[in-house]
């Protein structure tokens, strides 16, 4: 049904992108707002040069509610891709498919294909637990464990057996905090509870906690929505640094944030992936009426 599913084996190629979307966009400009008509067609380019996670034809149902329809998207190595869209558009749902957090919701059902490094993450032998160690997640509200700062960061390495001894664990905790830009603020109080930190610090602690497990992909679900602008800026800087090592998928409500941190942007609308493209392109020249409406503020 989607354009990507038909030519999946083919390597990501540019020509298509130039030919088709323009036509699509033109048609759509004539019938603005008729969302149902674009079922399953994503304009722009869902592919990328160096795909690491590939979602194909993903559908998610919560009971009878069809939350996500036929979404296909590639996520490249070491890139930041932002998922934007109005509330309830399914971007968070899609994000949670990528590390199978939806498994914890009983009524949720996922169909389609999602691969990580070429392997289907929904295959039977895949342990979702092992998957989540490779695809880490940072949540909307900072949620440190009610334990010490040290234990917050050390928890992941401990359950995955990443450190052979205490010194190594200390080292992991230290570097993780350092990479999360938190070390200077907390190095003297690692024993204090993580909940004693400010909101922005807590969120950086959560990032440190996530990178301590040494994941390959980091999913961020509106990581700054509960933070003030200064804390937000720090986290955005941090993402810039982190994308040198990790693929980052960020869900955000803020187009400015998407524009600042991401290389590519995917626009979701009512469970559909409407448009995917390079950030500059999507903000300067959106090819879909809905995308344009959204980034110009006509859709809240």
């Amino acid at each position, binding site marked *: 049904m989607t354009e990507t599913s038909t030519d999946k084996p083919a390597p990501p190629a540019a020509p298509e992108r130039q030919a088709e979307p323009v036509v699509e966009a033109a048609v759509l400009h004539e019938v603005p707002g008729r969302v149902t008509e674009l079922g399953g067609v994503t304009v722009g380019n869902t592919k990328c040069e160096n795909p690491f996670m590939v979602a194909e034809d993903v559908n998610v149902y919560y009971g009878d509610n069809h939350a996500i329809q036929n979404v296909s998207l590639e996520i490249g190595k070491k890139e930041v891709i932002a998922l934007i869209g109005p509330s309830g558009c399914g971007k968070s749902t899609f994000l949670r498919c990528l590390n199978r957090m939806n498994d914890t919701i009983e009524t949720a059902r996922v169909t389609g294909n999602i691969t990580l490094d070429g392997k289907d993450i929904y295959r039977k032998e895949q342990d979702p637990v092992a998957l989540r160690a490779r695809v880490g997640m940072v*949540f909307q509200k900072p949620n440190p*464990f009610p334990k010490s700062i040290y234990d917050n960061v050390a928890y992941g390495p401990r359950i995955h057996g990443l450190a052979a001894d205490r010194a190594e664990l200390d080292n992991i905790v230290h570097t993780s905090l350092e990479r999360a830009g938190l070390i200077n603020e907390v190095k003297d109080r690692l024993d204090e509870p993580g909940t004693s930190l400010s909101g922005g610090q807590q969120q950086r602690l959560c990032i440190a906690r996530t990178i301590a497990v040494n994941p390959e992909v980091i999913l961020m679900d509106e990581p700054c929505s509960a933070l003030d602008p200064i804390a937000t800026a720090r986290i955005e800087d941090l993402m810039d640094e982190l994308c040198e090592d990790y693929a980052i998928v960020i869900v955000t409500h803020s187009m400015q944030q998407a524009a600042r941190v991401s290389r590519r942007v995917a626009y979701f609308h009512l469970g559909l992936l409407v448009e995917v493209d390079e950030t500059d392109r999507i903000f300067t020249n959106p090819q879909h009426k809905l995308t344009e409406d959204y980034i110009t503020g006509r859709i809240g």
Partner: protein
Amino acid sequence: MPRRRRKEFTFKLLGMVATAIGIVFLGLFFASLIAEGTSAFKQTFLKLDIELSEDVLAPDGELDLAYADFDGLVRTALRAEIPEASGRRDRRELYRIVSVGAAYQLRDLIAQNPDLLGTTQSLWVPASSNVDMLIKGNIDANIEEALRPLSDKQIGWVRQLQDQGRLESRFNRALFTNGDSREPELAGIKGAVMGSVYMLLVTMALSFPIGVAAAIYLEEFAPRNRWSDLIEVNINNLAAVPSIVFGLLGLAVFINWAALPRAAPLVGGLVLTLLTLPVIIIASRAAIKAVPPSIREAALGLGASQTQVVFHHVLPLALPGMLTGAIIGMSRALGESAPLLMIGMVAFIVDVPGSLTDPATALPVQIFLWADSPERAFAERTSAAIIVLLGFLLVMNLTAVILRKRMERKW
């Protein structure tokens, strides 16, 4: 309008009266309990100069504690105090002033200190319960002689001894160190308390882990389907099933079918486990529900398994709430008596139980038994036992309240 206002006033007054009824009853109840029960913590003792004569105790030169005539020594000493009691009937009446416990006291003394043999000791021995009641003013000396348990002569002797300073009210240690007895002055609650302690140990050891495990399963693992609905409804109903029905279950299953010993704290503990399980499960589920889901998500997102999430994060945070529930369940178990009657724990048991399978009784059952006894002295002890029971319950509930306060501070 005045009529409406009057109605309003009457309504409010009715509410106040209703609220007051419960509280007044509570006050009345505690007042009568304290008035009745505190005197039982004191017991009248009689000072006797007893010659621990070797001739009496070891007539063959060999002291046999089981057969030695300690009673005789007590009687001799008593006769020495009240020489005017001379006839056989008088003497028999005289002997009733002192408790049969006096002889046991002598025996224990000699057993510990064989050197005392042959010496004369001035000892405080327990007076009989009737004398005790007289001293405490519970027997009216002015009513007709036939209607009271002490004769005029006995009362005279008691007054005489009192004037000589040979009677003294002392702390009633027997109440806490003895098992049950037919003699009120020797009856104690230690057997019952130990029985309750053993039972609660069994109950705690079983119902806390099982209850917590069940709560964890229902909250964190169980799929929402008919089966878990059934378990849920079932648990809520079990919490409201009359306790005596659990006793019937215990009798039919544990005693008749599994052939466990009757009256054993083990069986009592098992029955109370089933009885408290719903309480603990319901409280534990509430405690688990109170753990914010964001913490579960955080751990899951780091690649913790469901089981690790539960045991590393949810359980430690829910534990105070679970413990509170467990303590409340335990306090309910401690006050429970009806099911214990079913499994034979109402027997008259003198020995303090030493193991889980010894026949035993429980504190509330002891209260039930004593409340049934006609002697005036037992009524007093019943109240005292109730005070002790309520004391235990108070301590447990205070602990629960403190734990709950602690938990609230957590996040």
